[in-house]
């Protein structure tokens, strides 16, 4: 008796007698029934998933289970301790996460509520200019205006004879009031969330020199904060007048 190509079901031959045709059809029907039943049992039912984002993962050879969807911003991560060998988790260490973008306006800007979940903070100021010309823009750790908690050093190898004698450190020197001469700057506060060490930051800035607009300028100031407190906020303010433009971005770095 001939058989089908894929599943080998037995079918009547073209020359079989009518009296044997019914038997052949019954045999074929039984074979089809068995195959379909077995295939259905091996299929993965869609009812295994219960919510948007659920995925199907193996727990062993020929065995699957539902892995419920993770929370926002989690990534799928291998973990041999779980049933599926997978889990949803926060991204692994490394890289920068943008925590905030704040437009600079008014006579001072305070950014607070900084997450303590990272290792370093990286701040970027872009497109900065002020209402008054040839202005300095200053930085306060933790928006802390108490006297004698800030110290600033203007060069890589200088020392400051009046240690913590300031209420802020200078970040930008000679900011213009002309929107054509905007400045940008970056600073990194390393290990900002620890509560045992002083805090250091290196303040870099560059742009057109407001004192001589034919020149570009780059400045570097090292700032030190005498408190061991974790850094959860900071303040930026020009010496006089207001911010006319710019943004400050805060990145958490792991």
């Amino acid at each position, binding site marked *: 008796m001939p058989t089908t190509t894929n599943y080998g079901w037995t079918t009547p031959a073209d020359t079989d007698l009518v009296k044997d045709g019914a038997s052949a059809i019954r045999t074929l029907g039984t074979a089809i029934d068995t195959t379909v039943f077995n295939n259905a049992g091996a299929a993965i039912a869609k009812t295994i998933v219960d919510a948007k984002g659920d995925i199907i993962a193996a727990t062993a050879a020929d065995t699957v289970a539902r892995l419920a969807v993770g929370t926002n911003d989690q990534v799928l991560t291998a973990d041999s301790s779980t049933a599926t060998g997978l889990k949803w988790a926060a991204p692994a260490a490394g890289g920068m996460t943008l925590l905030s973008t704040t437009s600079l306006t008014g006579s001072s800007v305070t950014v607070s*509520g900084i997450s303590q979940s990272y290792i370093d903070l990286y701040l970027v100021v872009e497109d900065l200019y002020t209402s008054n010309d040839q202005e300095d823009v200053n930085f306060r750790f933790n928006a802390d205006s108490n006297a004698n908690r800030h110290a600033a050093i203007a060069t890589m190898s200088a020392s400051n004879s009046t240690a913590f004698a300031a209420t802020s450190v200078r970040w930008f020197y000679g900011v213009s009031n002309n929107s054509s001469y905007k400045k940008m700057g970056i600073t990194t506060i390393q290990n900002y969330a620890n509560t045992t060490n002083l805090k250091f930051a290196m303040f870099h800035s560059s742009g057109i020199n407001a004192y001589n607009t034919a020149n570009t300028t780059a400045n570097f100031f090292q700032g030190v904060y005498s408190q061991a407190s974790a850094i959860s906020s900071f303040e930026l303010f020009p010496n006089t007048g207001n911010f006319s433009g710019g943004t400050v971005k805060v990145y958490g770095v792991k």
Partner: protein
Amino acid sequence: MAKSTRPMVRIHNIETNEIIDREMNDDEFSQYEADQLSLAAKKAEAEAKAVEKQAILDRIGLTADELKMILG
């Protein structure tokens, strides 16, 4: 609406994403005035040093750029 008489400050709590723009309160304004005096004093000191520096350059007959070139 009363006209603003004190400088405006912006406070951005990035945990709640709340942004508050308001006039300085009494403590902030006191600190602001103290800062103005301190920064003005520092600026005056820096300007005095610049004048002294220029006087020295004039005495030795060099410009600042020429001195930088010599010092490498």
